[in-house]
């Protein structure tokens, strides 16, 4: 599973992406965020702000109850600020 980070999430973590293999019981985005939070102090700092984080699965915006699969590309980011 490929995880991509943007904006301040990338800044805090110091990485733009990582490949992970979460256990089978991690079935949705909410559970994945809680699991990622335990990876490091930096991850905890990021995912504690979960209300400010949006996400996508395979480049489609999804809500946090959405189911995930092992080969998904999942991105975490703050609300968009284009234009």
């Amino acid at each position, binding site marked *: 599973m490929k995880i*991509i980070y*943007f*904006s*301040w999430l990338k*800044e805090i973590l110091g990485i733009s992406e990582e490949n992970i293999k979460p256990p089978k019981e991690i079935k949705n985005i909410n559970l994945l965020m809680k699991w990622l939070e335990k990876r490091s102090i930096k991850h905890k700092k990021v995912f504690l702000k979960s209300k400010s984080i949006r996400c*996508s699965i395979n*480049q489609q*915006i999804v809500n946090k109850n959405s189911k995930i699969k092992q080969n998904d590309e999942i*991105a975490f*980011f*703050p*609300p*968009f*600020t*284009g*234009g």
Partner: protein
Amino acid sequence: MLIKKGIGAVVNFTGIARPANNSGNIEHLEIEHYAGMTEKKIKEVEKYALKKWLLNTCIIIHRYGKIKPGENIVYVGTAAKHRKNAFKACEYIIDYLKVRAPFWKIEKIKNKKIFVKSKKEDEKKIKKSF
């Protein structure tokens, strides 16, 4: 060309990087984007606007990377038979790009990085999500 297509109105919008905000002078903007998804979202809003406002044509350009004050950030051009549709479509597209296309702005002020926050009023303008 314009006669052939029946175009009676063209609206151009250009978004420009401001030199300052409440925190001080902006040295430059850094715009990050989600490659692949960005192009997809721009194509989606283009397709939607062409159909909804019966546009003859529509051009959308959004820069990313380092942008200095005074430089262009975004361009939206719409052409329609009548001005009302061209104006409405242009406004919708730029509002959409602000909150529904995966771009993130960072302002560099006095060697500090400021992550620009999205505005709730901008979010409310666009109900439709493609």
